[in-house]
């Protein structure tokens, strides 16, 4: 009986490991995002961004971006990109396991991911151990590019630059509107993303001469934030600088409303606050949040290509494009461009091609100067951020003032007045 049992186990294992067959002329790219779990809505639009980019690369489109005008990768005889998704559910250990599975079982030649900085850290660690290029599209924790990794590349600007953006904005605001914000409270989730953000927010607050009156960190999967919000309230700040993923972003806004807490402004650090689900869930109560962003639809006034791509996205998915999906899109284009220039699917050659990347600003759907990786840290040096504000359920660029399409509404109107 025991032996039979063992034989069954062994057979089951053998059965599972029948080698997978796949087309020779497709380029397999592994993509890891939080497709289920608390940040599922963000994960889904990230994947859609990647798929749209892959589509554009694989077909002929009249767009001024790399590989759009051809079908497939010309230097690889028109081979098409195949996206293999993996779901990390927001958990670092699953991210690592999925990365390993994509590399060793699915035999992907490169990877994109993973949104949550904590998951990107472990997934890229797996990639580093196996020697597979990993392009990070949307995680902004600065630590990720300070690990001395050779296979890790990041297209999005990180929280070092982006945190400084907040204070440049506040400075400009004080000059233009004579508003001097003298007390700021920090509220943040406590994984890698949040703790790194807080670190840099404090650094730049000091540099620019702003006073942080209190910091509250909370577990990312909190089911209620009453204590946290009350603690922030007790510091009596004029504005709050908040870093949250989608679930806690929505929860905190509801809590603010319930406790009737309306500071002069809430400045948000991207992530949950720019997810399309945010406005959907909160309706009018989402208005007047200002967030650090890397993309906005109204940038199309300067770059018409953005509107074309955003419309394509909305037509495919029924959802509005946002900073997350735009960055996932961009990373895919950059990676495909590198693979094309490498003329091969060998990881070492792709790595070399990535180091030589030089995509011009006009060819991106982002308000960046371009994509060029620092030779040591592999951080894109030409990225930059903007500040958007939600007005009437839409995101409008309000800073830098020369790119702004609307005036920032300040202060935040009280809850009763909406």
């Amino acid at each position, binding site marked *: 009986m025991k032996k039979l049992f063992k034989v069954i186990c062994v057979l089951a294992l053998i059965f599972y490991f029948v080698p997978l067959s796949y087309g020779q002329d497709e380029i397999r790219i592994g993509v890891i995002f939080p497709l*289920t*779990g*608390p940040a*599922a809505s963000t994960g889904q639009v990230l994947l859609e961004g990647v798929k749209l980019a892959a589509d554009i690369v694989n077909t002929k489109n009249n767009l001024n971006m790399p590989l759009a005008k051809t079908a497939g990768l010309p230097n690889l005889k028109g081979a098409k990109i195949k996206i293999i998704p993996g779901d990390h*559910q927001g958990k670092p250990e699953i991210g690592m396991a999925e990365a390993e599975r994509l590399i060793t079982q699915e035999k992907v030649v490169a990877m994109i991911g993973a949104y949550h900085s904590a998951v990107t850290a472990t997934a890229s660690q797996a990639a580093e151990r196996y020697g597979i290029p990993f392009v990070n599209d949307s995680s902004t924790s600065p630590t990720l590019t300070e690990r001395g990794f050779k296979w890790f590349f990041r297209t999005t600007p990180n929280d070092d630059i982006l945190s400084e953006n907040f204070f440049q904005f506040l400075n400009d605001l004080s000059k233009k509107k004579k508003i001097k914000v003298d007390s700021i409270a920090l509220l943040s989730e*406590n994984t890698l993303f949040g703790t790194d953000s807080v670190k840099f927010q404090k650094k730049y607050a000091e540099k620019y001469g702003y006073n942080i009156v209190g910091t*509250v*960190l*909370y*577990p990312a999967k909190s*089911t*209620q934030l*009453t*204590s*946290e919000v*009350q*603690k922030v*309230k*007790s510091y009596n700040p004029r504005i709050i600088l908040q870093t949250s993923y989608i*679930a806690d972003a*929505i*929860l905190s806004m*509801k*809590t603010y*409303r*319930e*406790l*009737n807490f309306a500071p002069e402004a809430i400045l948000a650090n991207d992530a949950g606050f720019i997810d399309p689900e945010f406005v*959907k*869930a909160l*309706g009018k109560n989402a208005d007047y949040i200002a967030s650090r962003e890397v993309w906005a639809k109204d940038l199309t006034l300067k770059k018409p290509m953005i509107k074309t791509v955003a419309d394509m996205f909305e037509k495919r998915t029924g959802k509005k494009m946002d900073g997350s999906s735009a960055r996932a899109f961009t990373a895919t284009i950059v990676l495909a461009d590198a693979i094309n220039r490498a003329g091969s699917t060998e990881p070492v050659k792709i790595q070399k091609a990535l180091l030589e990347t030089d995509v011009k600003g006009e060819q991106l759907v982002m308000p960046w100067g371009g994509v060029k990786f620092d030779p040591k840290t592999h951080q894109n040096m030409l990225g930059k951020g903007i500040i958007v504000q939600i007005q009437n359920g839409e995101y409008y660029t309000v800073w830098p003032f020369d790119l702004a399409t609307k005036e920032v509404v300040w202060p935040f109107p009280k809850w009763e007045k909406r």
Partner: protein
Amino acid sequence: MEGDLIQTLVSGLLIGFIYALIAVGLTMIFGVMDIVNFAHGEYLMIAMYFAYWFFILFALDPLQSLPVVTILLFGLGIITYYVFIKPIIRAPMLTQIFVTFGLLIFWRGVAQFLWTVDYRMIPQAILSGNINIFGVYVGVPQIVAAVGAILCNGLILWFLKGTRLGMALEAVAEDKEAARLMGINSDRMFALAWGIGIATVGIAGALLASFYYVFPEVGSNFCLTAFVVVALGGFGSVAGAFIAGIIVGIVEVLSGFLIAPSLKLLFVWSLYLAVVFVRPQGLMGRK
């Protein structure tokens, strides 16, 4: 600062009533048949999902679907008793622990399978916004949930002390043999205890669905705290659970506010250990 302290105490009070409601079912089941229902929190989770789906499918606000959810969970409690619990009534404690604990995993698996791990929230429930009581702002859903919990607790106390059926239940809890000799069918009493115990959690779930996220693991957040409440109040004492619920709610929120929100649970668990070592029978328990 004082205003904030009062605000915090009020929040603690409100959440405490809800803990009390969840704990009442747990302590009743234990009191009547000496079984700790480790899966208690999962029934809360199921109730929350029911409330959520009633909203999505039939546009019923949780307040409106509350009676239906309660009845459904009452039925679920009875079914659970006859299918899973009755076979192990006389089994060793180890077995009982494993079965209720297996149930915990089972329901969580069912929820994950049917509804995925995504977080869900009822958008724009009837209960939203806040009201101002003497300068303290309280969220409307929280106040309604608290009031609901108080009413429910009161109802159960009245049932147990003031009705024949309730007293029969208490008799079985006191002394099964004597109760049997007096003609009380303990099997039916056990089933009833399960039905009521799970129904209370059903009410709590429907109330919570107005303002909490719903996801498969939401049960453990509340249930673990419910264990502390039951221990503090005394395993088996309904009145004790009520008072203890309030105490635990206040301790949790106060420690979060005065010390650090991320250390809240540390204080709640330390409270459990303190109670269990110093006064094992809790505030009002009899064992």
